[in-house]
């Protein structure tokens, strides 16, 4: 039997295992939304306040669950509003399918009302994209979109569907199962043997991993490898939550605002085993100085990441879980007491430096210390709580301090650094049935606070913690350190009352300036099971430390402000 293109879209989404989509209706997707209405008992559509929020929600849903996130928007501005969300997902390798409507084929290319070349616009920020001009190809194109999004290194795929294709009729036969991803490249046996040789020879191995370890589901293999070769572990921002923060081998995030111990340990190692990471400039600092003292074994599913940013002595393309698993069988078990002693020493040093820095920051008036905020909130949350951040100082404080214990419990915009990511992503995590906490700043929150409306409509069990310092703190920190305290446009000077704002949206909110107040607020917020905003007052001159200055290296690490 022939059915409409719009129905084919909905049937194919359901066939691919999609039960929740995020989006916003409009003229060129009205047929599609009609089908969503007719099938509302089979697939849930969550209406956001803005298409960007919907894209971030699909992203958050995907990161929290590992499934493909789906977002739907209309043509023109609806489609362009998705772009930041798609780019965010692209930079962080998040599987997503974005479906956009477009003007009918006959009107394409004529600058018709709400027409935009979204395929052209999103080409650089998608794994692949399609415009479907023939309804007979629609179902297979959507299936292929899911397949591409999930295969190898995951990423976003966009499918643009002109309105007349949504109304045209075609035969449809549902598939029994979702498409299977393209087979993964498996690491070359000889290269793995070479890797094992290098590891066996190493006296000070260090494992550095990234987000690929989470999407590749290889956290158990990682620990097993580290245990067998007696190596410390550090990660990039994207790797956070793969390994429990309190794991004895785990030194934390490294890089620009990474932990002192992990950055120094890496520099003092003789071999860095990089797993599912891409050596972003934020993780390495000065590329000439980085890796001066050590060799690198780089294993990644994406061949284009190998030898791209940092030259590796040995580069291996392959599925990370399979590669580490086989590598474990090839390496010798060893004990490296001198190296372990040095690592313990570095941890001690880090503790002393952190305490000195904390002593310096706290006590400047009636404000909360950022680390105290993270500590107090984390004590009220449980291990399953999904922690979401926006971008800026609060993001780094959370990344450094929050005690994670399960993969996929930390959602943050790492590669693109998208302020305004948090609310959408938190709503996505909530839609996946997770309790979520959003750490945000007053700057970032200003970019996505409209999604409070969505959180309230969805009755999302979401705790929103604003680290409110009245400034764009991360840029201010740079201005303090490198621009002679020229606070150009980073002092917000707004009179926004976030508590009243929360109430205006139909959420609860309260303001805190002391630890005691925050303790009590957190208790109420976590018991609430609905959106609950806590406005935490933070001093505008709190710094994120340590810091490798931009273009700098571990030699220039700043651990206290003089």
């Amino acid at each position, binding site marked *: 039997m022939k059915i409409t293109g719009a129905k084919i879209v909905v049937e194919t989404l359901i066939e691919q295992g999609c039960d929740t989509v995020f989006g916003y209706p409009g003229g060129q997707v009205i047929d599609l939304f009609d089908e969503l209405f007719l099938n509302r008992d089979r697939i849930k559509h969550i209406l956001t306040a803005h298409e960007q929020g919907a894209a971030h929600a699909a992203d958050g849903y995907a990161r929290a669950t590992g499934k493909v996130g789906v977002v739907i928007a209309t043509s023109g501005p609806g489609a362009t509003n998705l772009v930041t969300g798609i780019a965010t997902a692209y930079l962080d390798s998040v599987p997503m399918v974005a479906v956009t409507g477009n003007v009918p084929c006959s009107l394409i290319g004529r600058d018709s009302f709400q027409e935009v070349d979204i395929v052209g616009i999103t080409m*650089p920020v998608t794994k692949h994209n399609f415009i479907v001009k023939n309804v007979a190809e629609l179902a297979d194109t959507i299936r292929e979109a899911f397949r591409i999004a999930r295969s190898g290194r995951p990423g976003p795929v966009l499918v643009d569907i002109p309105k007349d294709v949504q109304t045209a009729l075609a035969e449809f036969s549902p598939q029994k199962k979702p498409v299977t991803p393209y087979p993964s490249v498996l690491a070359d046996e000889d290269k793995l043997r070479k890797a094992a040789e290098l590891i066996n020879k190493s006296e000070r191995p260090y494992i550095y991993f990234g987000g690929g370890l989470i999407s590749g589901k290889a956290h158990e293999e990682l620990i097993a490898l580290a245990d067998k070769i007696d190596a410390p572990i550090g990660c990039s921002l994207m790797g956070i939550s793969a390994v429990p923060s309190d794991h004895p081998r785990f030194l934390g995030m490294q890089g620009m605002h990474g932990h002192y111990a992990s950055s120094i340990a890496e520099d003092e190692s003789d071999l860095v085993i990089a797993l599912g990471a891409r050596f972003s400039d934020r993780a390495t600092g000065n590329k000439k100085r980085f890796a001066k003292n050590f060799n690198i074994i780089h294993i990644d599913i994406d061949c284009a990441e190998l030898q*791209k940013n940092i030259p590796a002595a040995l580069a291996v393309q392959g599925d990370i879980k399979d590669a580490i698993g086989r590598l474990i069988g090839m390496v010798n078990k060893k004990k490296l007491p001198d190296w372990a002693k040095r690592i313990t020493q570095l941890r001690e040093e880090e503790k002393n430096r952190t305490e000195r820095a904390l002593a310096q920051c706290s006590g400047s008036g009636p404000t909360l210390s950022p680390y105290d905020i993270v500590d107090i909130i984390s004590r009220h949350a449980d291990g399953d709580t999904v922690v979401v951040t926006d971008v800026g100082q609060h993001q780094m404080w959370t990344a450094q301090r929050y005690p994670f214990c399960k993969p996929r419990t930390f959602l943050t915009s790492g590669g693109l650094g998208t302020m305004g990511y948090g609310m959408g992503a938190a709503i996505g995590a909530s839609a996946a049935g997770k309790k979520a906490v959003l750490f945000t700043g007053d700057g970032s929150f200003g970019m996505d606070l409209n999604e409070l409306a969505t959180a309230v409509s969805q009755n999302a069990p979401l705790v929103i913690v604003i680290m409110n310092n009245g400034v764009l703190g991360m840029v201010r920190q740079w201005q303090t350190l490198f621009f002679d305290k020229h606070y150009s446009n980073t002092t917000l000077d707004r009179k926004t009352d976030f508590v009243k704002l929360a109430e205006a949206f139909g959420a609860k909110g309260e303001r805190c300036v002391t630890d005691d107040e925050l303790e009590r607020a957190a208790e109420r917020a976590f018991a609430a099971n609905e959106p609950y905003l806590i406005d935490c007052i933070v001093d505008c001159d709190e710094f994120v430390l340590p810091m490798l200055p931009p273009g700098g290296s571990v030699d220039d690490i700043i651990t206290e402000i003089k």
Partner: protein
Amino acid sequence: MQYVIGVIVSNISGVLSRVSGMFTRRGFNIDSLTVGETENSGYSRITIAFNGDEDIRDRILSQLQKLHDVKEVEVLDRKDTVIRELLLIKVRNNAETRQDIMTAVEIFRSKIVDYSPSSLTCELTGETSKVDAFIELVKPYGIMEMCRTGLVAIERGENCLKTVK
């Protein structure tokens, strides 16, 4: 040095944008790019010439391989590859210079494909250096306009770029 690569892509709309866009986006420079159908109408073949070191070459190859519509990529070894370019060039024609131009055309195994009392259009196929030399030679007579195709290249012997991955 200059590398010449052959790229087999799906013959569908937008594929040239995807390939050329990757070069622009990642800051790689293209010397020349040609595209045309292959023996299989489902695929096109793109020949790209670019300058760079081995590192740039490898990054270009791996980025191209990642594109969904790219089916095959190969660096063509200049020693084992026939590389050609086509030139159409319109030169000013008058009684005094006509004979000299005709001589050049003959020596270079070029062909006159259009003739008017005031212009001569020549067609020339060859490697880049030969095309360059011919242009230099006729320059003094006055080049009215010219166009060159950029490189096309195919390996000698049995080696083939397959159209199916």
